């Protein structure tokens, strides 16, 4: 994929094996991380939103701090954890897509939790009371609340996805930006590829990859917006 490969990249962007492969890594890693984050975040947000318990203020503060946590620091911590000399070293995760999923999960979870929490606490108490009054179980009530707060939760997932897919600091550190000699990306995603292209002064390719990244985020936003908006208007 040396310089000769640039020509096909610029001429036939979506035919390029290199670019498709990078896009695939970006999407697989970020979607996996966001799916896992959502599974963790929604129950946590429901619990924190509706239960009174000691230390609730502290938990909220931790979530809010996590939303702005610097990604390079997350990358360093994850690297230490998964490196061969770290506590998870035996799992052989360093410089793999799985390590990238871990770091994006750590970054996206506080965002999804925080924004969902705001949406859930915004649901009128009357809705909950009505659900209980109709004999609903805890699960029923939770589902009613989630349904009511679905726009807020969709926004939360999108914010988490945006944080995950556009993040470069941690995935560069834990993933290593690896592509094989034939141009097949292993841990190279859109953001780390942009870093690499810019480092080599190939600004056209970098800009092009940037445009793909923005287009992907817009596309996912549109899809989620359509799914979320279908019920209401």
């Amino acid at each position, binding site marked *: 994929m040396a310089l000769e490969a640039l020509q096909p990249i610029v001429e036939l962007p979506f035919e390029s094996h290199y670019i498709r492969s990078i896009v695939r890594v970006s999407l697989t890693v970020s979607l996996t991380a966001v799916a896992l984050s959502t599974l963790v975040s929604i129950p946590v947000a429901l619990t924190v939103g509706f239960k009174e318990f000691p230390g609730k203020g502290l938990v909220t503060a931790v979530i809010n701090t996590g939303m702005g946590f610097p990604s390079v620091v997350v990358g360093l911590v994850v690297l230490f954890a998964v490196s061969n000399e770290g506590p998870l070293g035996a799992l052989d995760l360093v*410089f793999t897509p799985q390590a990238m999923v871990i770091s994006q999960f750590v970054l996206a979870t506080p965002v999804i939790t925080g924004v969902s929490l705001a949406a859930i606490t915004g649901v009128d108490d009357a809705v909950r009371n009505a659900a209980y009054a109709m004999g609903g179980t805890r699960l029923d009530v939770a589902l009613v609340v989630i349904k009511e707060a679905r726009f807020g939760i969709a926004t939360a997932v999108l914010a988490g996805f945006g944080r995950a897919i556009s993040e470069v600091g941690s995935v560069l550190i834990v993933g290593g930006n690896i592509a094989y000699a034939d141009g097949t990306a292993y841990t190279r995603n859109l953001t780390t590829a942009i870093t690499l292209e810019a480092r080599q002064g190939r600004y056209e390719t970098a800009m092009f990859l940037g445009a793909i990244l923005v287009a992907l985020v817009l596309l996912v936003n549109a899809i989620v917006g359509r799914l979320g908006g279908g019920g209401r208007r």
Partner: protein
Amino acid sequence: MAIQRRGFLALAGGTAAAGLAGCTGTFSGGEESEGGNESTSGGGSIADQELVLATTTSTYDTGLLDEVNAAFEENFGTPVQAISQGTGAALETARAGDCDIVMVHARSQEDEFMRNGYGINRRDLMYNDFVIVGPSDDPAGIGGSGDAVGAFQAIAESQSLFASRGDNSGTNTAELQIWEAAGVEPGGEWYLETGQGMGDTLNQASQQGGYTLSDRGTFISQQDEIELEILVQGPVEGGPEILANPYGVLAINPAVHDNVNYQLAMSYIGFLTSQEGQDVIENYELDGEQLFFPQALSEDPNFQQYVPEGWQPEGTDGGNATGE
């Protein structure tokens, strides 16, 4: 009863492994032919394994590595995962046992790495050279002098802008050695540490009209994008020896890190230092210029293999002592 329990455990383990395989499988979606090389597959053939190489940005950014690795994969069926960092960071990755092999260019750092027992079987691989590049108006007047140390002194005296990598890379190490030879402690407003790779540093030097020390390969691969020219040549074009830039390749000592793929690492070193590997290096050109000069083969029967500088074999238990 015990047998039954074992059967149950095997079943449970098998299910867990299948679950894990399903999980990791998502990352190879659509590429099943190549996707079979996940570590969970556990096959014995060499084609199922992967080699992790930590290397410098210069071998990577010039495109040489893709060429070499494609040739290796063709021969051994093993893909190479290359992580490009500065020499310092690459050796740090190696020290932690997070890669199987290192290819770097800072002899002093390599010597220390070998002495501490982390590396084994280092080979000289190839060389090219460093060049001192700067703006064409050349405010320090170093053009064509052929004296690298004198050029650095002139840059310091005229307080002309100098961009340093400042990232503990091989190029940065070489640069600091030249400053030391010049008797200059670089610092002050004219001396910028970019903390970035060679390409970025060349860009910054170009944008700000400053000097920098670059490896010839990265400079050639970028010269169309920047407004800098070579003012002091390295030994490839008859310049001083202090600008020589030798590359070495070494395996991680499996006695220190038993998780490394030592056999594959040695296959890689063997390939790179073979006639075929050296030919790939010799024939690699960018813009019609040869970037790297093979150095692993010699017709000289007394050809010296690698020995760290100042190495004292006696009393060190054969030399391959494990690290502290």
